[in-house]
């Protein structure tokens, strides 16, 4: 098993309003089988033993599905490996002697809480505006009453696999949340259950996205490139189509 010696350059920031700066930490004997976050665990245990404050970073499931973790590693959201959330990135992607820079998601809509931890509650407020089908508990018909072709079901599923990590925002030069919002809009566009509310949903979610301070999409495609779940940028095209149709139909202004 090969061991690595690394130099870590990590963003430290005491709180949302405090100024932040990069700090350098050497770390020796890193195993290639460690996950990236386990490598940071090792650093933190060392810092605590030395009487220093550990680096705060957020995480939960550590299996790439909860969407809690997210670091900009060497300038790339979630790091060098495609289709991989930070917690699933393993140290075998790096080599002995590497210098690794680690920063938080940077976007006005995601203020820093501490060090590498950011506040992504803006996403919840967007979902609250329409990221669902309005159906009260108990009023559903039999599940097999409405057949849905496998192709549409699969496309809906693909869009629905978004984990809400925010990498798309972090990677976008405009800090747009379009990939996130469009994934939800697309899921319900492919499914008949989503149709009764389709205009209302897209208009309200997009409006909330703007209100939260996310930027506009200008087709850079950085979001798709870093998405750990491979959410396609085609969803943004679907969202735009839905938005235009809804705006024309309801007479809402297109901004």
């Amino acid at each position: 098993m090969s061991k690595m010696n690394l130099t870590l350059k990590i963003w430290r920031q005491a709180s949302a309003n405090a100024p932040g700066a990069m700090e350098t930490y050497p770390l020796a004997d890193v195993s290639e089988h460690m996950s990236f976050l386990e490598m940071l665990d090792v650093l933190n245990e060392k810092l605590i033993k030395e009487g220093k404050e550990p680096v705060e970073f957020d995480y939960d499931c550590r299996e790439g599905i909860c969407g809690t973790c997210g670091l900009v590693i060497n300038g790339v959201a979630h790091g060098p490996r495609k289709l991989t959330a930070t917690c699933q990135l393993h140290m075998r992607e790096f080599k002995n002697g590497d210098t690794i820079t680690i920063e938080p998601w940077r976007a006005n809509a995601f203020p820093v809480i501490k060090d590498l931890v950011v506040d992504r509650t803006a996403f919840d407020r967007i979902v609250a505006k329409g990221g669902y089908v309005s159906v009260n508990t108990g009023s559903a018909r039999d599940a097999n009453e409405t057949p849905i072709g496998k192709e549409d079901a699969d496309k809906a599923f693909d869009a629905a696999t978004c984990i809400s990590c925010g990498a798309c925002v972090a990677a976008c030069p405009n800090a747009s949340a379009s990939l996130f919002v469009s994934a939800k809009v697309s899921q319900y566009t492919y499914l008949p259950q989503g149709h009764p509310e389709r205009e209302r949903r897209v208009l309200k979610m997009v409006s909330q996205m703007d209100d939260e301070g996310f930027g506009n999409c200008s087709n850079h495609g950085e979001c798709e490139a870093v998405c750990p779940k491979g959410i396609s940028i085609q969803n943004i095209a679907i969202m735009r189509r839905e938005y235009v149709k809804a705006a024309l139909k309801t007479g809402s202004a297109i901004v």
Partner: protein
Amino acid sequence: MTISNLKEGADLKGVQPDGPLAQKWDSYKAKAKVVNPANKRKYTVLVIGTGLAGASAAASLAELGYKVKAFCIQDSPRRAHSIAAQGGINAAKNYQNDGDSIWRLFYDTIKGGDYRSRESNVHRLAQVSVSIIDQCVAQGVPFARDYGGLLSNRSFGGSLVSRTFYARGQTGQQLLLGAYGAMMRQVDAGKVELLTHREMLDLVTVDGQAKGVIIRNLKTGEMESYAGDAVLLCTGGYGNVYYLSTNAMNSNVTAAWRCHRRGAYFANPCFTQIHPTCIPVSGDYQSKLTLMSESLRNDGRVWVPKTQELAARVRKGEVKPSDIAEEDRDYYLERRYPTFGNLVPRDVASRNAKYVCDEGRGVGESGLAVYLDFAEAINRLGMSVVKDRYDNLFEMYERITGENPYHTPMRIFPAVHYTMGGLWVDYNLMTTVPGLYALGEANFSDHGANRLGASALMQGLADGYFVIPYTIGDYLAGAKPVDIKDTDSAPFREARAGIEAQVQKLMNVKGTKTVTEFHRELGLKMWDYVGMSRSEAGLKQILTEIPKLREEFWQNVRIPGTENGWNKNLEFALRVADFLELGELMARDALVREESCGGHFREEYQTEDGEALRNDEKYAYAAAWEFTGNPSEPVLHKEQLEFENVQLAQRSYK
């Protein structure tokens, strides 16, 4: 009795509705009190945790008109660990025409739980299972479908019918997003107040009834008080007492344990589930274990080399698994259990993996792994079918291990996954503290001594969507609404002061060992003595070790930073403090239960061929433990389980 200082209290009884089993739930609903629609908004329900149980309960209660406050420790409710459930959700739809029924799902669940669960609760679970699928499809949950557009099913362990609905390997995610969406719709409507980054640290009782909670704001470090008419604990299981488990890192027992300290009995804590198909440990830096869905056992074949010599050569890397001839392989599950084969229940599969590794036939560097092989499935079904079914799981395996399971068999080993034990609840899902409910994995009610695959999602959603909306009305209809602004009365002040003092005490220790070091040490002991197999000697040993470790923790833990603001180490320290008490209760419960059943395997009680040997005469009860002020002196209350509809039998999957 092997432990001399065991104290026993009065027996417990769950509420038992009238009538034959199949009519109990209808009979209950017909007679339950309901709250007038205009009065519902006068009641506030505090929902702790926003996984499947919490989100579905919060949404459903708000739809009914109750005021709801929903709390979660994460930055978003959608991150609750239900999100990570992979395989599926059971429902007795019988869409496959293969003989499924509510009765069969009920029977499979009771049998799978090794006859240690309550008949009436389990039957209700099977009944409402069918409505869950309807509800989720109506919400736009993208379940897997056939080309004809109808829902697809797969099989899971412990069942002979195909009743598991799934969304590729991400069923929990899709179900949670459905429930989360339903809840967020109520947030938008102003009926649910969502409070994220909040951890419950105490229950406030007034005249013995649950009337509020003390919450730590994880962003600011402030203590906050909330009053309500009922508290729903939807906080999941306690598997992280083992340090390494498939639980999320933040999953913990703290809210439930603090309720236990306030009077809620804790039932069957020793019933833990060790899942057979997880990625093996790779080093001492390991922070968690990753599950590979049980659905893989539909097509994967479990094997080890036939001889120790061959296994030793595999471990050294001299022989590759693909080079081992068929006759030199032991497909031990297929050999020992021809009827169920690779689809035996989880406890049986895990124990057998342990046996073959104990025999020296394990693989991988550590020898603590067995193979799960897809070569035969790829030959039979073709690569594209296997890819369609399992690709995301295969990719995850490859990311973690660096090995490609399409070409070489997966290495798997059992890991702690789920806890069947939890707060004791009656038929209403109410704990022994009136007004305090426990839903989903946080309660003990439905899975007995072993949970069947794809039943956790079913139970979480059953409790939240279809049980609590009925049972809570029966309680609130008789209660006077509280003044939610009144959080400065003596019970709130005292609880808050107690928690603030505990935080101060922890911060002031300034010792030399980190929280993680204590947690890891506790976890190793739990795995060794209260893990896949337990013995009287081992349990007695750990019962002397845990109190010492707990004492050391309070004298020597080092928590960096301050209590004001974000401090992950402080969060974990508060949780580890509770795990250090729970661990002892688990060991005591395991010692008192002198039988083997489900996930609880006592070495002294086994059949000649190594199967679990139950003792129905003495132990057909749920063990509900009362906290007495001293974690080493709990009082045992028994709920005798009455089986009127199923015949107790030695479980056989042969």
